[in-house]
């Protein structure tokens, strides 16, 4: 598999990207897929190590060595089938997945890992371009009806699998467009939205009905849902953002990231957004050092912010992980995203103390440096460093500090499924069944905020559980 000596001869190649000055002028994708020859060379670097940690490191267990080899040999047509056998939306993960597979790659022990994500991206895009991705309509319909509530990656993967098993699937979405976080959480410059439209077209032919602009529970009461469908899958995500309850939080100009990001995607899609929150000409402070924070940085840059500062509460992680210690697991290390490359100040171990403003609008942020120390109980606790307080000009503050659990929507109140300690809907990864009969849960609503690829996994596994529940057996993969 791969070229036996490929890893000794060939280097990891990164996907070509538009230079920063060019790409910050638009919202389109700026990372291009590998050329045929480069993809083949990257596939050749796979050592076919024999115990593919990449495959177990991948939440959907993509059969990575196999398609690495197929791409090396130019058999992309077969590669897309192998890739689709474990992953419903490789064009998505090929763009936005942080690639835990690459952290787990055996070559990563003492070398640069195989560019697995770039190969996935290549296979998926090439396959769509060549017209190799066709709808997989079921041979027989079962006559069973399943409602999927929420159209993010978990809901869509679940819906597609269930439709392919022959069920009639209806996907409900409270927003005006299908896609959930894929549609409104990921900026267009990371993933263009026609990819979702393309998948929706495929899924419609496979038997999925999409109903946007319907908030189940409010527009469609739970009893009606349970009456009309044989099974219900809750895939509403973990949308409740973590707040920052400090003085001045209610000043104008302090927003949750997820109030800010979707607006730009809507504008890009041609919508008119009244009173859009913009960063144009403003001093922007992003609180939270994760991916959402990063997306705020990239979007602010494109809107023409005067300055962008990003804070993280935790101390700065090391630039290079201790590989013998952490491999094959996901390492905590300094990660500089493409949005960071586009320009922003980053600061670590900073806690915001209050916002101050004039005329109801924020003008500055007061913060202090903190120190993390192990407390008596072994837990790391932070402590403010005395006299470290400082102020920063702020016209727009974006809170990107993660999500605490499912949003308090009326559907959850009506169904009242049992919750776990983190307010997530309780269900196991074996049967995905909630405490409410015929109601299942998958994705962030069940596991808490996580990656797109975990959502796809849960959606797929949940689909199998639902299929088994409805039919007594299932041929869907787990």
């Amino acid at each position, binding site marked *: 598999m791969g070229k036996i*000596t490929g*890893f000794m001869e060939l280097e990891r190649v990164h996907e070509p990207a538009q230079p920063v000055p060019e790409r910050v002028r638009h919202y389109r994708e700026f990372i291009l897929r590998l050329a045929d020859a480069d993809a083949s060379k990257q596939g050749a670097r796979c*050592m076919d*190590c*024999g*115990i593919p940690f990449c495959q177990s490191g991948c939440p959907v267990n993509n059969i990575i060595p196999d398609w690495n080899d197929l791409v090396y040999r130019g058999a992309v047509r077969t590669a897309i089938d192998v890739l689709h056998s474990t992953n419903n939306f490789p064009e998505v993960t090929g763009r936005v997945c942080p690639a835990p597979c690459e952290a787990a790659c*055996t070559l990563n*022990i*003492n*070398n640069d890992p195989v560019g697995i994500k770039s190969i996935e991206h290549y296979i998926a895009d090439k396959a769509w371009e060549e017209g190799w991705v066709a709808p997989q309509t079921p041979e027989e319909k079962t006559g069973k009806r399943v409602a999927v509530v929420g159209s993010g990656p978990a809901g869509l993967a679940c819906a597609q699998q269930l439709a392919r098993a022959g069920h009639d699937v209806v996907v409900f979405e409270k927003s005006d467009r299908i896609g959930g976080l894929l549609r409104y959480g990921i900026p267009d410059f990371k993933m263009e939205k026609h990819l979702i439209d393309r998948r929706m077209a495929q899924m419609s032919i496979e038997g999925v009905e999409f109903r946007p602009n319907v908030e189940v529970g409010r527009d469609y009461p739970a009893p009606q849902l349970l009456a009309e469908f044989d099974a219900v899958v809750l895939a509403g995500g973990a949308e409740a953002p973590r707040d920052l309850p400090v003085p001045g939080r209610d000043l104008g100009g302090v927003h949750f990231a997820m109030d800010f990001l979707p607006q730009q995607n809507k504008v890009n899609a041609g919508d008119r957004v009244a009173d859009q929150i913009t960063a144009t000409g403003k001093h922007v402070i992003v609180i939270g050092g994760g991916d959402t924070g990063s997306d705020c940085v990239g979007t602010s840059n494109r809107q023409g912010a005067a300055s962008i500062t990003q804070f993280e509460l935790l101390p700065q992680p090391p630039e290079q992980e201790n590989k013998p210690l952490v491999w094959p697991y996901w390492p905590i290390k300094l990660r500089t995203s493409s949005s960071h490359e586009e320009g922003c100040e980053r600061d670590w171990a900073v806690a915001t103390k209050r916002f101050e403003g004039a005329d109801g609008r924020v003008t500055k942020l007061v913060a202090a440096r903190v120190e993390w120390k192990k407390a008596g109980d072994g837990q790391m606790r932070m402590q403010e460093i005395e006299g470290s307080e400082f102020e920063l000009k702020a016209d727009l503050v974006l809170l990107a500090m993660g999500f605490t659990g499912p949003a308090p929507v009326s559907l959850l109140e009506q169904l009242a499924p049992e919750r776990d300690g983190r307010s997530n809907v309780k269900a196991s990864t074996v049967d995905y069944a909630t405490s409410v009969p015929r109601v299942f849960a998958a994705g962030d609503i069940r596991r808490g905020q996580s990656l797109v690829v975990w959502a796809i996994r849960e959606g797929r596994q949940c689909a199998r559980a639902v299929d088994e529940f409805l039919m007594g057996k299932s041929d869907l993969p787990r």
Partner: protein
Amino acid sequence: MMRKCHLNTCPVGIATQDPELRKKFTGQPEHVVNYFFFVAEEVRELMARMGIRKFDDMIGRSDLLDMRRGIAHWKARGLDFSRIFYQPSMPPEVARYHSEEQDHGLERALDHQLIAAAQPAIEHKQPVRLSYKIRNANRTVGAMLSGTVARRYGHAGLPEDTIHVAFKGTAGQSFGAFLAHGITFELEGATNDYVGKGLSGGRIVVYPDPTCPARPEENIVVGNTVMYGAIAGEAYFRGVAGERFCVRNSGASAVVEGTGDHGCEYMTGGTVVVLGRTGRNFAAGMSGGVAFVYDPDDEFRNRCNVTMVGLERVANEMDQAKMEQELEIAGKGRLRHAGRTDEALLRELIERHLRFTGSTLALAILDDWEAALPKFVKVLPHEYTRALTEMYEEHVVPVSKPAKQKQAA
């Protein structure tokens, strides 16, 4: 992590000879020491949890094994382990672990007689001629005798043929194992497996009983894995050997009249002459030394594993000298195997085979030498060719011409 130990591409430099990859090896002996400390510590913890004080008290306690997860695994479905983990009911006075010394019957070994009879040789280097009957209960004959010689004289041993033992019968396993310099074992009869295992300079000669009507070159005379890991010495077998003849030989010479499968497997040095048919997969993993195979029907190629070796015709002395000269001029000279021309080396080994075993096959080949020589195939490992070339470059090229002639002489 990697299961590619056979490809020479181990990315962490463990199972590879590639100098670039070996640089990546970061292990230290202390890591292994640490590892065993951890193992010991964990074993202690597990024992403490089970309330067991001594290792001996755990032996045979299959009732303490946690096999639920193993049995619940889908691959184990339908398997019944009860007999594997069966506990025979035994009274407490019956030990569950090794608590008595085993009797290997070493004091009855034939070697005690050999050592006693060879005292003049061992003490005063006086040649001794001995003869014994042998049967298959006599195992590893010669090892203790060789040990006695080695303790006294080291690996250099005694002058050639100082202790000559003629046996008659069927030898048990490992006849002539580790035989030291200066000892010759001659056997009229046949042997079991592992003849000449670890041969360390001695000479072993085996030929069938002359009254036996079977044709020697068509019948097995020595068993499997003969000359396993031999390092020096010589052996002559009038007849056919079993599987894996000369496996891991690193320096001894051997002549045989046919072999089973996997001949010269993993061989790293020495010279092997096969005067008859070989089995399949000859020379698998062979990285050094040379084998000469008599191949009058030109079919050896099909039975040889040529992954690591090249096959050549054996040139006569004149042609070889000419070829070497041409290579030298082209700057690609290489040392000779064993410092001799192939023809001289091959002919000498076959002559000795004839002399020691009376082989009619050897006689026929020597009688028609001019015609026989081109029918030999030389099996030459690629790695060995590279080594001979590099050694030539290191030792021959830098010195001036006179020294080069000295080398040839």
